[in-house]
């Protein structure tokens, strides 16, 4: 589900539209922190796409939790 990018960051492999996978990932993550509501993009509240620790990239996002 994750790739380690050239800067050693954890990048979500499935892009910005994989809602089920992003939700699955958040449900097994102990570090999930919901972002402010206006920044939610997924219907499921608990989703990496709604997490404060995701940093959007052009194609996907990286997770700021330590690898």
């Amino acid at each position, binding site marked *: 589900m994750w790739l380690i990018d050239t800067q050693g960051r954890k990048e979500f492999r499935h892009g910005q*539209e994989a*809602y089920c996978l992003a939700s699955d990932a958040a449900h097994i993550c102990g570090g999930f922190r919901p*972002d*402010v*509501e*206006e*920044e*939610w*993009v*997924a*219907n499921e509240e608990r989703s990496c*796409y709604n997490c*404060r*620790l*995701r*940093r*959007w*990239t*052009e194609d996907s996002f990286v997770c*700021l939790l330590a690898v």
Partner: protein
Amino acid sequence: MKVLICIDDTDNLESRGTGELATMLAEEIERRSWGNSDFVTRHQLLVHPDVPYTSHNSSMCFAADIDGKVLDPLIAYAGDFLQRESAVGSDPGLCVSVVEQLGEPEAAIAFGHSAKKEVLTKQAAYDMAARLGVHLSEHGGTGQGVVGALAGIGLRLGGNDGRLKGWLKIKTKDGLASVGEILAQTTLGGVRTMDGDLLDVEEMVEVESKPKAVLLEGKIYMMVSPLADGGRARWRTTPRQQLKKF
């Protein structure tokens, strides 16, 4: 006079969001009897490695109808507020525009759209602000937020960008409401399909939790999508994930 107030880049990973600060500013304007504040909109800007941001790159804008004599105190208050309330490590920017005095509205709108597609510099923002005759100021850090603050003014002015902060409060019966009932409970300009059609008041809509509104053609709309089974209603509120483009 009608003013647009936009702020950007006020947060860090631990702090309140920029939207909350915009709401606090909007409420303070009313608390001080300076005028009436309107809804806050969120405007997505370019996500690019060369654009610094916290976890998203969006600015927050609202309109207010104020007495002309409070314009300068409002700008001073808003600047101090950002200086005080913005998070450590943020780069806050503030833009305040008097709508009827805006020299070239089309240039402001074009700047906003440019900020969604290309990397813009602080200098470009200050040059454009001078051309437009709007207040633009930075209140900490690198001040890079001035780019988004000015862009947000243009995007709000254009009336075709952004989602409203918060969600619509709509009472339903078993999750259903007619368009007429929805309009009676909100200040929406209408209930609109993703294809752009307005629904008639008798149409029934399945309203999901925390429905969002978007800014289109200068009005706020709740977007709906067709329901496949068409049993209780032909429409449902468009899922949040399909509203990303606004």
